[in-house]
């Protein structure tokens, strides 16, 4: 019998096992690669689903908030102090809060679903009452409106008693006036809406004060071409002592509230692209030029706000004296141009044009007691197209096409040496061409239904 070489056999023992283990190791590696890939895909998908869930929950928060403030007929002060938090299920909840944001109220809702969060921010204002279906509302009690010349109005004309309208026209060329698709409605209760400017006054006082008496500021003037905002911050403020210039700046607020302030002037140019919950506040003036684009922002200045040079604006412009949209600029809906007056006797002007397109709501508030000698007015200059709602406590001077609603104490036509007031002459106003119902700022307290004015993109 041949003797077994035990040593050699021992050396070869378990060689199949090693081969199997090697194969298994390779297979396991491949398997875990596939497994981790599948897991990461599943995790990404799960995260996306939860993010969408959170987004629906944020939307639910906005709806619940609107429902509760209307159900309880809350005043602006109570809306602003209201906090809402709702747990829908073990892993679903939302929290909502409100704050003043220019002439509107900013509602911020945060939805949370299994670790994912999504925010939604909307601006709410007031739904106009049925009067705003008319083309013209003349609320001047002292002087009746006169419609004359080659005036063409499409829509209702609501005037106070004693107004001289079609049929009893004074002045020249009265035969050509035309009123289509509407009626002249004489009403005894056509009075000026009482504008409660307390909310905006408080908002502006606090913001202008931040510029006037800053805790900390950048000394001198500054030019900003780029801004890196930390996304974890909820607010970000830059204060400059004198002038601030924004050049070619690309800035999206996302979920952050950004305030850019200057002690004197702010100029925005060279194709800036600025959007989101951003306040731009200057003590004196703000000029937007050079094809810049602004969306959702607030501009606030005491002396003037000028939007020109092919720039596109969508947001709120709040100014104590003069707001001008000119030189191929566009003001797109949702926009509010608000010339405010709290206590002084200065004249206010909102000027559209020449050569502009606007869908903005314009509100000229003049509480001064200077009567009819003051010339605060909204002017629609030549070659302009203005769609929207225009309200003036004093005059509206229409020299171009208005596709919307003119609501004023007086309309304006002036012919030297004789001065006429409250005339509509050679104008075209077409209410039917306004295809959206403008959401009014919260200063119009006689409206009691809220509506969404702006929806912010929050990433």
């Amino acid at each position, binding site marked *: 019998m041949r003797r077994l070489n035990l040593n050699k056999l021992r050396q070869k023992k378990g060689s*199949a096992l090693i081969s199997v283990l090697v194969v298994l190791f390779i*297979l*396991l590696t491949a398997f875990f690669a596939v497994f981790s890939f*599948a897991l990461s895909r599943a995790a990404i998908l799960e995260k996306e689903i939860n993010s*969408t869930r959170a987004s629906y929950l944020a939307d639910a928060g906005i*709806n619940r908030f609107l*429902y509760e403030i209307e159900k309880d007929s809350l005043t602006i002060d109570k809306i602003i102090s209201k906090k809402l938090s709702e747990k*829908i299920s073990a892993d679903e909840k939302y929290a909502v809060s409100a704050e003043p944001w220019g002439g509107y109220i900013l509602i911020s809702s945060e939805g949370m679903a299994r670790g994912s969060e999504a925010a939604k921010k909307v601006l709410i204002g007031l739904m106009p009452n049925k009067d705003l279906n008319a083309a013209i509302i003349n609320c001047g009690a002292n002087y009746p409106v006169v419609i004359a010349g080659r005036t063409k109005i499409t829509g209702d004309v609501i005037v106070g008693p004693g107004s001289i309208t079609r049929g009893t026209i004074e002045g020249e060329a009265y035969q050509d006036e035309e009123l289509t698709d509407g009626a002249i409605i004489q009403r005894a209760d056509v009075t000026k809406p009482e504008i409660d400017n307390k909310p905006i006054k408080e908002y502006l006082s606090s913001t202008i004060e931040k510029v006037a008496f800053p805790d900390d500021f950048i000394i001198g003037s500054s030019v900003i071409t780029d801004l890196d905002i930390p996304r974890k911050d909820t607010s970000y403020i830059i204060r400059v002592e004198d002038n601030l210039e924004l050049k070619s700046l690309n800035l999206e607020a996302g979920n952050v509230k950004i305030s850019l302030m200057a002690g004197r002037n702010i100029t925005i140019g060279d194709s800036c692209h600025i959007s989101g919950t951003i306040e731009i506040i200057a003590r004196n003036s703000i000029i937007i030029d050079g094809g810049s684009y602004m969306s959702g922002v607030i501009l606030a200045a005491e002396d003037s706000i000028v939007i020109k040079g092919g720039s596109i604006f969508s947001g709120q412009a709040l100014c104590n004296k003069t707001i001008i949209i000119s030189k191929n600029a566009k003001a797109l809906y949702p926009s509010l141009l608000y010339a405010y007056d709290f206590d002084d006797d200065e004249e206010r002007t909102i000027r559209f044009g020449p050569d502009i397109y606007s869908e903005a709501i314009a509100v000229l508030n003049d509480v001064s007691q200077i009567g009819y000698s003051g010339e605060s007015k909204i002017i629609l200059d030549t070659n302009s197209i203005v769609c929207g709602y225009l309200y003036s406590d004093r005059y509206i001077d229409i020299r171009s096409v208005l596709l919307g609603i003119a609501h004023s104490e007086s309309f304006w036509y002036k012919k030297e040496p004789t001065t006429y007031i409250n005339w509509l002459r050679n104008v075209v106003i077409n209410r039917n061409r306004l295809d959206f119902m403008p959401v009014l700022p919260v200063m119009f307290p006689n409206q009691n239904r809220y509506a969404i004015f702006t929806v912010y993109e929050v990433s």
Partner: protein
Amino acid sequence: MGAINLLKDRRGLTILEVLIASAVFMIGFAIMFFLLSEIVGKYSAKEKIIAYHLAQEYMENSLASDEFSNAESVETNSNISFKIKREIIDMGQLKGIRVTVSREKTGKLLVSFYDEKYIR
């Protein structure tokens, strides 16, 4: 003679070795197969993606429409049957809308969305 010795040295595997190796391989393979089927069942991206899109579509349609009522339907997509359920929580002018999509066979919940709509 030397060549014959060398051949003798290259002996095959013992039965014991083959049996152990096979057993280890089988156990390893079985574990992998089990885990793989678990993954397919639990983390099937395809099924979840379809359910996700179905839920989103139903929610958007529900928000866009003015009719708020409970509804249930079965939809087959890529040979997978899904049960879609819309449940309305009536709070007067405020409606809570819950849309769920589950696997029709097992009833396993895949996606659930909740939103509210204020009806004026």
